[in-house]
């Protein structure tokens, strides 16, 4: 089934744009059929039942039925391979 990935940052301006693109590229490279949605943090709850994964540069205190992955390394390059691996594992489940 097609996976749905949420990408969220505070303002929906800068960081989620970068992370969104990185994940779309990853999915293409690995032939994963996924829908990547760039959303504001405040919009996450409305996707609670339909999303498979949340990748975010903000703090998430609420608990969701899907895993949450911190996306900071997409910006700094530090540990980015590990994060990509984590995301891929979730998407291949």
């Amino acid at each position, binding site marked *: 089934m097609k996976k749905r990935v949420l990408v969220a*940052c*505070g*303002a*929906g*301006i*800068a*960081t*989620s*744009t*970068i992370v969104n*693109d990185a994940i779309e590229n990853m999915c293409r490279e690995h032939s994963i059929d996924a829908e990547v949605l*760039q959303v504001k*943090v405040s919009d996450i709850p409305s996707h609670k039942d339909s999303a498979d994964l949340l990748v*975010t*540069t*903000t*703090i998430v205190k609420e608990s969701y039925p899907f895993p949450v992955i*911190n*996306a*900071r390394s*997409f*910006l*700094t*390059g*530090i540990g980015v391979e590990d994060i990509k691996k984590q995301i891929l594992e979730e998407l291949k489940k």
Partner: protein
Amino acid sequence: MSTLLIDQSLILQNIKANTKEEVLTLMASNMREQGVVKESYIQAIIDREKIYPTGLPTQGVSVAIPHTDRVHVNKKSLSVGVLTEPVHFVLMGEDDRTTPVKLVFMLAMDEDHAQLSLLQKLMSVFQNAECLSYLAAEEDKAKIIAMLNHALELPEKGDEKI
């Protein structure tokens, strides 16, 4: 698509500050004086940094990328602040862990989803420790702008406007 302004008036060096709020106020007020942002930008950037911190550790000196909603922006621009002594910013995506920031890249973006290629090039600067050391140490603003124009692939002609 509007163009990004990086101007010598937006490069602030030898910033002496004790808190991130002081740094943010100083840089945002200067952007206001230069007319690239509205008065409301100053408080908006401070408030947003509290809720969504932007400190980023790198392979070199730590950076922060404060930014806020486009309603507060007049002209898409980038202001660079070099701190004399690092000031602690909370890490992006965290509650209380901080990183000692030496370089602040304050973004004024006028679109909801800022230009991807520009942001990617800016991130590639953060991933290059040599670039960051250069920005932190170079005193000649013209050289800093030339380096940023090169890194961000902006044309170098004119007065740094494209």
